[in-house]
């Protein structure tokens, strides 16, 4: 803990007195440790006693009472920033301080001693150039404390405009470098709004004057009478020679005393200062926004990695079947998935699914569908039964109007393929001599209908036959003319593929889609899987 001290502001100016005695007496008489000459101050008005690490303020039976932050007290443990008032003496202000000055406030002191905001502006400019202005709150604090130091105003606020143009309190500070608690404060609402809209400073010498009082009831009630409000504005990038400036908010200072804040000199130097301050605030804000954006992008990249990790290896082979699969999300993460699983005594199960929607919500649901599938597939030998179970599991966790489509097939060592198709784009069977089949039997999409029933069908595959399963991102891929890839082009791309390795057939299919779409941006995830029966 740094040495406790009192900052006194009265007609003699401002000074700081250390509380260097166990009991520190404040009063009008000469023998007091701090002598204050004022009719409201009693001869021995109050004392501050050091008790351990604490400082206790005690009223010594004064005539007009002792106040801390506006509340009358008889005994009160002091905290950094507490304002002490003796009687009705608005002309004398005592601020209790214990906390150390930071390096930055050291700079501030140098500046305010010189009494020159221009110097502060130069420091701020330097901070900005050094990139120290990265943390918005620090910049705001520095700006406000400097303004308070120089103007001797009691309270200071920085209000920044939100997207809708409403002003929002960003920070509130009081003399003595304390943050005023709370998120909303009694200030004039009219003055900041005017300054924000016109970009012109306002000095209001006395809210009690003229017709103003009626409009500022709330402010006057807490004794605030003098207001200085300057715009925080920056020149928009690329605006060249134009004089248009972008007002990002206002700096608002007020107090009960006239102090120096009302002088024309203070006003013009504060305006110059506000220009530098606005730049520093703006760059800190931009930095914060880009940092937030970078964080979201990083999260998405991690999500994409996790999603890739959830998918199995893109190729698989057992003694009678080989498969290859690929999934290309149109955004960082996608709503498509594929999976395969050895079903004991039945064969190799393989599935491909597509969740309605795109991006992170679809990716989460895709993960849920995939894990449900992986849990249900080994339980039953019948693909239709698997679908029914997955559908029920999804309905139990119903997410309104979100659904998934899925194809699930099981290929046995004898070439028998049993399958069920839940609303998925029908897979293509490529047979010898260019024969084709579409695997359509099944039921409706998953996760929407509690009464949905699923059927299965079975077809026989010969060695070399291929099953091509794809998401609608393949058949609905568009070229620049807006045409769709469609099923005919899918068949054409697979014409000569019979018997070839699944990786090669998959490459041929994706190559055909790429060539067709000619680099047109795709609106959907593109996922495909090719399975070949028989390892020739």
């Amino acid at each position: 803990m740094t040495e406790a001290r009192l900052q006194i502001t009265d007609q003699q100016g401002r000074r700081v007195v250390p509380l260097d005695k166990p009991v520190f007496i404040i009063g009008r008489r000469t023998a007091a440790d701090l002598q204050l000459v004022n009719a409201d101050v009693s001869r021995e008005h109050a004392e501050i006693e050091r008790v351990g690490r604490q400082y206790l303020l005690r009223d010594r039976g004064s005539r007009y009472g002792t106040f801390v932050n506006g509340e009358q007290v008889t005994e009160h443990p002091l905290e950094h920033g507490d304002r002490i008032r003796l009687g009705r003496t608005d002309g004398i202000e005592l601020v209790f301080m214990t906390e150390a000055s930071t390096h930055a406030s050291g700079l501030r002191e140098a500046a305010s001693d010189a009494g020159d905001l221009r110097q502060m502006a130069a420091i701020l400019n330097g901070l900005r150039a050094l990139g120290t202005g990265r943390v918005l709150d620090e910049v705001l604090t520095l700006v406000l404390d400097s303004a308070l130091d120089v103007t001797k105003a009691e309270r200071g606020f920085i209000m920044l405009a939100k997207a809708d143009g409403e002003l929002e309190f960003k920070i509130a500070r009081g003399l003595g470098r304390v943050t005023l608690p709370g998120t909303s404060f009694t200030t004039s609402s009219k003055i900041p709004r005017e300054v924000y809209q016109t970009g012109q400073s306002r000095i209001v010498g006395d809210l009690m004057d003229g017709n103003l009082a009626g409009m500022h009831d709330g402010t006057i009630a807490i004794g605030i009478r003098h207001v200085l409000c300057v715009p925080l504005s920056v020149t928009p990038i690329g605006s060249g020679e134009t004089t248009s400036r972008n007002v990002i908010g206002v700096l608002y200072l007020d107090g009960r005393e006239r102090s120096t804040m009302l002088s024309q000199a203070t006003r013009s130097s504060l305006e110059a200062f506000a220009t530098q301050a606005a730049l520093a605030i703006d760059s800190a804000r931009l930095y914060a926004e880009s940092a937030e954006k970078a964080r979201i992008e990083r999260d998405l990249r991690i999500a994409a990695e996790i999603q890739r990790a959830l998918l199995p290896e893109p190729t698989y082979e057992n003694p009678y079947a080989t498969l290859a699969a690929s999934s290309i999300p149109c955004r960082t993460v996608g709503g498509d998935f594929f999976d395969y699983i050895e079903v004991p005594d039945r064969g190799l199960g393989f599935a491909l699914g597509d969740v309605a929607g795109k991006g992170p919500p679809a990716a989460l649901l895709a993960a849920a569908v995939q894990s449900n599938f992986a849990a249900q597939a080994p339980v039953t030998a019948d693909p239709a039964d698997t679908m029914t179970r997955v559908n029920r599991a999804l309905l139990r966790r119903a997410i309104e109007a979100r659904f998934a489509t899925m194809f699930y097939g099981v290929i046995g060592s004898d070439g028998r393929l049993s399958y069920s198709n839940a609303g998925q784009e029908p897979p293509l069977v490529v047979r010898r001599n260019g024969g084709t089949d579409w695997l359509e039997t099944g039921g409706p999409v998953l996760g929407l209908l509690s009464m949905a029933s699923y059927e299965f069908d079975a077809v026989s595959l010969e060695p070399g036959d291929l099953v091509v399963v794809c998401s609608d991102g393949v058949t609905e891929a568009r070229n620049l003319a807006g045409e769709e890839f469609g099923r005919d082009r899918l068949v054409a791309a697979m014409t000569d593929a019979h018997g070839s390795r699944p990786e090669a057939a998959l490459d041929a299919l994706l190559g055909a889609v790429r060539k067709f779409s000619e680099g047109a941006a795709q609106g959907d995830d593109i996922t495909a899987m090719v399975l070949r029966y028989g390892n020739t």
Partner: protein
Amino acid sequence: MQIQEKANGDVVVLTVNGDITLNAGGDVLLKDKVQSLLQQGQTKILIDLGGVSYVDSAGLGQLVQIHATTKNQGGALRLANVTKRLKDLLVVTKLVTVFDTYNSEQEALAAFK
């Protein structure tokens, strides 16, 4: 997306124009509309989709949801003028049996009688 509402006897006819998609916000708009009709005690609802060029998966999900909600509340929902594209989508997703679809408003209205 725009929805026009008119009454034909005790049937409320909603004529939809534009896309029913997540991006167009149309999916929720239509659902909210039907929800408020049901709350007002309207149970016979006909949606004319003749002016709908595109329905994405989110829009399709909402159509199913709307259908289920109407049915659960003792009402009936019918679709008229379903475009070929939407019909194909209903066939692939095997949702075609879920909906009562008609080629024209007149046919759909007659089915309510």
